[in-house]
C-alpha cells in the first residue's frame, strides 16, 4: 500500500487543521464563545452541524488516498513492489467494496434482475431474450420471492449493529458532555440516525444495490457517496482560495483609502462586471489546456482530475472574491473611523499592528459568514457548471456529473429515477443543513442582527 496525497487532500487537511487551531486560539475569547454557544443552543443548529460534520467526516475519510500494492507473480525475480494504478480511499474500504460491485448496465433499486433484456441462453441452451439476473444482487437468495423477507431480516440485524455502533460512539460523548447546557441530545439523536443508516447501507449493499445501478452498471449509492467529497471540498476550498485575496485587498482599500482604494475598487468592479459564467468557463478551459499540455506532472489519472478540481476551486474563488472584498472594505472603512482605531493612531501604533490587531480580528465575522453562506452556493453551482461542461472532471464522481448524465433518463419509459434521486437526496441534505447552519451563524455573528435582538 502506498499513500497518495492529492493536492486537494493536502488542502482539505490543512483547512481542517487551521480551523482547529483557529478555534483553539479563540477558545478564550468570551464573545466568540458566546456566539458559538448561541449557534449551538438551538436544536436545529445542533442537528445541522451534526449532519455537516458527518459529511465532512466522509469527505475526510474519502481524502485519505492510497494505491494498493500489486502482488508480484511468483515467476518474477524482482522484489520491487509495484502499485495499482487505481487510487482507493479509506472510505472505499469502509464501504466494504460497494464501488467494486459492477453490473452490466442499469438496474433498479433492490432489483434482482437487470433493467434491460439481453440475449441469454436459457437452461436448455436456447437463445432467449430476457432480463438477466444481476451479478451482485440477491445471489444468496434461493428464490426471488424471498427478497422482501430477506431485506427485512438483514435490515434488522444491520440496525442492531448500528445501535451497537451508536452506543460506542455516543456513550463517551454522553459521559463528557451530559452537564452541558447545550442541546447535545439533538446531536446524539442525529448521530444515531446517521450511524444506523450507515451501518444499514454498508451491510445491505453487500447483497443489493440500494439505489440501483447506472448505465455503466456502477452502484448509484456509491457514486452519490463519492459526490460528498467533491461537494464538501469545492464548497470549502473555493472560499479558502479567495480569502487571502479578498481580505488583503479589502482591508487595504478600506484602511489606506486614496489610490489604493481606487485601484482595488477598479479591480473588483471590472471583475464583477464580467458575466460570471463566461469568466468561469474561459478560465476552466484555460486550466484544462494547461493540464493537457503538461501531462507529465501527474503520475495517475486521479491526480490530473484532482489538478482540474483544484483549478476549478481556484477559479470559483478568484471570480467570486469581489463580494467579500467589497464587504470587508466597507467594514474596514467603518472600523477605521471607530474610537479604538483612532486611539491606536493617537498611541502611534504602526499600520501593520493596527491592521493585525484592530482591523482584522473585527472583520473575521464577515469572513465566517461569507464562508458558511458561500458553502451551499458553491455546492449548488457545481451542478450547474457540470451542465455547462466546465465542472469537475468526469472521472471524479460528483453530483453535478450525475445529474448531467442522468438528465435524459427521466424520459425513459419506464422512468429511471434513481440516479437523479440519489444525487438530489445527498445534495439536498447537505445544502439544507449548510443553509440552516449558515442562517444561525449569521444571526449570531452579524452585528446588525444581534443589535436587533439587543433592542428587543
Amino acid at each position, binding site marked *: 500500500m502506498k499513500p497518495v496525497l492529492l493536492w486537494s487532500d493536502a488542502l482539505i487537511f490543512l483547512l481542517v487543521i487551521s480551523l482547529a487551531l483557529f478555534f483553539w486560539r479563540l477558545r478564550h475569547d468570551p464573545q466568540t464563545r458566546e456566539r458559538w454557544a448561541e449557534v449551538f443552543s438551538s436544536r436545529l443548529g445542533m442537528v445541522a452541524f451534526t449532519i455537516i460534520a458527518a459529511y465532512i467526516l466522509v469527505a475526510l475519510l474519502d481524502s485519505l488516498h492510497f494505491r494498493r500494492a500489486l502482488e508480484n507473480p511468483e515467476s518474477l525475480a524482482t522484489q520491487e513492489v509495484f502499485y495499482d494504478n487505481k487510487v482507493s480511499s479509506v472510505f472505499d474500504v469502509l464501504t466494504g467494496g460497494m464501488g467494486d460491485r459492477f453490473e452490466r448496465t442499469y438496474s433498479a433499486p433492490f432489483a434482482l434482475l437487470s433493467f434491460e*433484456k439481453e440475449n441469454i441462453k436459457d437452461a436448455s441452451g436456447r437463445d432467449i431474450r430476457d432480463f438477466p439476473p444481476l451479478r451482485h444482487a440477491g445471489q444468496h437468495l434461493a428464490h426471488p420471492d424471498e427478497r422482501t423477507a430477506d431485506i427485512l431480516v438483514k435490515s434488522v440485524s444491520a440496525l442492531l449493529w448500528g445501535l451497537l455502533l451508536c452506543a460506542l460512539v455516543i456513550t463517551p460523548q454522553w459521559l463528557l458532555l451530559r452537564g452541558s447546557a447545550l442541546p447535545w441530545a439533538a446531536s446524539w439523536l442525529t448521530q444515531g440516525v446517521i450511524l444506523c443508516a450507515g451501518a444499514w447501507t454498508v451491510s445491505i449493499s453487500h447483497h443489493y444495490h440500494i439505489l440501483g445501478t447506472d448505465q455503466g452498471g*456502477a452502484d448509484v449509492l456509491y457514486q452519490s457517496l463519492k459526490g460528498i467529497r467533491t461537494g464538501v471540498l469545492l464548497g470549502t476550498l473555493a472560499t479558502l482560495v479567495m480569502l487571502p485575496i479578498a481580505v488583503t485587498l479589502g482591508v487595504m482599500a478600506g484602511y489606506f483609502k486614496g489610490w489604493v482604494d481606487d485601484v482595488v475598487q477598479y479591480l473588483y468592479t471590472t471583475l464583477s462586471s464580467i458575466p460570471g459564467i463566461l469568466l468561469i468557463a474561459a478560465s476552466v478551459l484555460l486550466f484544462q489546456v494547461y493540464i493537457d499540455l503538461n501531462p507529465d506532472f501527474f503520475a495517475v489519472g486521479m491526480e490530473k482530475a484532482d489538478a482540474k478540481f483544484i483549478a476549478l476551486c481556484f477559479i470559483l474563488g478568484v471570480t467570486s472574491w469581489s463580494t467579500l472584498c467589497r464587504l470587508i472594505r466597507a467594514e474596514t472603512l467603518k472600523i477605521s473611523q471607530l474610537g479604538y482605531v483612532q486611539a491606536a493612531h493617537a498611541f502611534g501604533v504602526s499600520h501593520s499592528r493596527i491592521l493585525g490587531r484592530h482591523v482584522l480580528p473585527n472583520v473575521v465575522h464577515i469572513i465566517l459568514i461569507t464562508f458558511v453562506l458561500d458553502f451551499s452556493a458553491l455546492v449548488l453551482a457545481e451542478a450547474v457548471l457540470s451542465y455547462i461542461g466546465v465542472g469537475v472532471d468526469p472521472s471524479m464522481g460528483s453530483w453535478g456529473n450525475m445529474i448531467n448524465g442522468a438528465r435524459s433518463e427521466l*424520459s425513459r419509459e419506464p422512468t429511471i429515477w434513481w440516479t437523479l434521486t440519489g444525487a438530489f437526496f445527498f445534495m439536498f441534505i447537505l445544502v439544507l443543513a449548510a443553509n440552516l447552519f449558515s442562517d444561525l451563524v449569521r444571526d449570531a455573528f452579524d452585528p446588525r442582527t444581534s443589535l436587533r435582538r439587543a433592542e428587543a
Partner: protein
Amino acid sequence: MLSRFAALCTRATLLLGAALLPGCSDGPWNNPNPESPPGLLTYQSVMSPLPPKHLDPALSYAADESLFLMQIYEPPMGYHYLKRPYELLPLGVEDFPLISYTNAAGEPVDPDTEAVAFSVYEMTVRADARYQPHPAFALDDQGNPRYRFTDPAAGRQYRQISDFPELGSRPVAANDYAYAIKRLADPFNASPMLGFMAQYIVGMEAFSERLKDIPRDGWVNLDQYRMDGLEVVDERTFRITIKGRYPQFSYWLAMHFFSPIAPEVDRFFHNPGFLDRNLTLDWWPVGSGPFMMVKNDPNSEIVLERNPNFREDYFPTEGAPGDAEQGRLADAGKRLPLIDRAVFRLEKEVLSLWTKFLQGYYDRSGESHGNTNRVFDQAFVVGPDGVELGAELAEHGITVAPDVKPAIYYYGFNMRDPVLGGYSEERRKLRRALQIAFDTEEYLNIFYKGNGIPAQSPIPPGIPGFVEGEAGINPYVYDWVDGAPQRKSIAHAKQLLAEAGYPNGRDARTGEPLKIFIDVQSQAISSTSMNWMDRAFGRIGVQVEYRPADWNRTREKLLTGNTQIFSHGWLADYPDPENFLFLLYGPESPLICQCDGANNASYERPEYDELFRQMRVLPPGTERDALVARMVELYREDAVWLFGYYPKDIYLNNPWVHNNKRHGISKNTLKYVRIDDELRERKREEWNQPVIWPLYAMSALLIALLLPGVIAYRRRLRATARQ
C-alpha cells in the same frame, strides 16, 4: 370574509380559464409548432443540435449543412434513392460524364495505357433545369439586374430575401458549373476542397495563386479569369480536365461542391451593405433543386418551400430487392417533390426533442442524426430479430429506419509508439491481446444499445470490399462458432500477452505493470465508459490511463504523433473502398506528409502502400477486389486499430410519414417524403390531451397556504393584552 375571498378566487380562476381556453381551441395546448400556411403540406422536422454554419456549397463540409444544400442545389451527379449498393445517376446533367483520356500533349490516348496524363469529363446540363425564383435574377425594363446598388444606403430596407418584391429566374447554364468550380479555387472563399481538388483539377492551383493578389473590393467576376482545366463548350456543355486517372472523381461530382452557381447571384450578394445584414450566399443558397429556402433563422428554424421551377422529376419505379414488398414503391412514378414545405426547427435539448417527437410534433426523430443511439436508446432494443420497439412507440405505430452510413469509428494504436507500436511479432501479439480484451460487442450493447457493427476490417457494409460471413471475420480476434463470429477468449488474450512479454500484464523483465494511455476527447467520453474500459482491460491485468483533452488539443496530439491510443472516426465522402483504405496509407501519416493526414496510426507497410497505389486507379472489378482483400489482411495481421465499429443510426418515423428509407450517402431525399396530413392531425389530437387536475390541485394548494395566514391575522386583530 373568508367565503368572499373563496368566491373571488373561484371567479378569478374561471376568468383565467376563459382567457386561456379560446387561445387553445385550435389544437392541443402543447403544440410547439407555429401554424403552417393553409394549403401547404408541411413536413415538420428538426435540426439538432446546432444550426448550420455555412450554406455556401463551396464552404460547407458538414452533414448537417448538406441536409439543406442538397435539397436546394443539384450537383451534376446523384444517387439512386432505393437501389443498393449505391448507384450513381446523373442529376443536374443529362447523362453520365463522357470521359476521354489524353496524354501529356493533350492527344487522345487509350485509357489503359501508361501514357494517360489527363482525363477530360464532358457533361451537358439538363434542358429543363431552372433556378428558383430569386431577386438576383430579377431584371428591370432595360434588361439590367433590378437589384444592383452602389451605395449601402440604397438597399437598406431589404433585411431578408423575402423583402425583395421582384423575382426572376433563368435556366441553368454550363458556365454556372464552371463558375462554381472557380469559386472553389478562389482562395478568398477558403473552400475546404481547394487543397484537395487542386491535386486533381488542371489549372486550379495556378488559378488560385493568381487570384491571391488581385485587389478585392466587392465582387470579383471570376468569369474574367481562365482556369486551364475548365472549358465551357456551349450554353449547356462544359468540360473538366483532371490530372491522370481518378475514377473516384465521378463520386465527387455528386457532392454539393460542384453544384451550379449563377454569377449574378454571387454578384447580387456582393451588393454593398448586404453582408452586414447577413445577406450572403453563405446564408441564402440559390439553386435549381426541388426546394428553395424561404426562411433562415439560425436561432429557431429554417423553412424550405417547393421550388416552382423545379424540373420534371419522378419517383423511381424500381428499387432494391424487397423494396416493392415493403411498399417503398407505392409512389412510383409520381411527380416530385411530394410535400410543399419543410420546417426544420432548432432543438438542442434532447429531452425536448424526444418528447415532441413522441407527441407527434416532429415527423421524424432527426434528419442527419437519428438521435437514437445515445439519447433515445430506451426507444427500442436490438434483439435477435432486429430492432424491437418499446411498448409506447409500438403503440404509436412508429416505424423504424436503420441507416448504416459508410463510416467507421475506431480507437487506433500509434504504430510508432515505443511500447505498443512496431511490427515485430511480439508487438502484434500484444496489440491483438488488447483487441481481444476490448469486448466491442458488449461496449456497443451498453453504450450504443447495440447500434453498431463491430468492425472486422476498415471497410463498412455497403462498400465493395466488405465481406460478410465467416470469410469476413478477423481471424486474429474472432472464431467462427455456430454461424456467428465469437470473440476469442480472455485466456487466449492472456496467452498472447504472455507471449508478448507481459505475463499477467506485468513486464517479464522488470515486473512493472503494463499501463496503456488512451487519448480521449473530453466532451466525447463519459466516466461510465471509462469505468467500463478499466474493467475490460483489467481482465487481462492491463491498467489504463486516460488523457482527456479538447478537440484542438487532441488534434494537435494526432498531428505530432504524441499519443499511444487515440480515438477517431471517418465518414466517407463516397462509397468506395479507397476512401477507407487510405486511412492506413503510409504517406497519409501526419508525421510523414507534415499535413493533416488521415493515417493517424502512422501505419507504414511498404507492401500495403504499393497495393494502395495500384488499387486507387483501378476500376471496380475482381482485380481491384483482390488487392483490397490483401490490404485488409495486412491490416488484420498488424492489428493497427484497437477496435472499430460501423455506426448504425436508427431513425424513428411517425406513422404518417412515408418513404423513410435512408440513403447512407445522399442527402437529397426530402423530395421523396410523403405525409398523411389527416392522420397526423388525428393522432396529434389523440396523443396530446392535457391533464387538467393539477391546475385545480395547485389552486387548492395556494388557497390552503393562504388560509392559515388569514386565520392568524384575524386572530391577532381580536387579541387583547390579557392572556
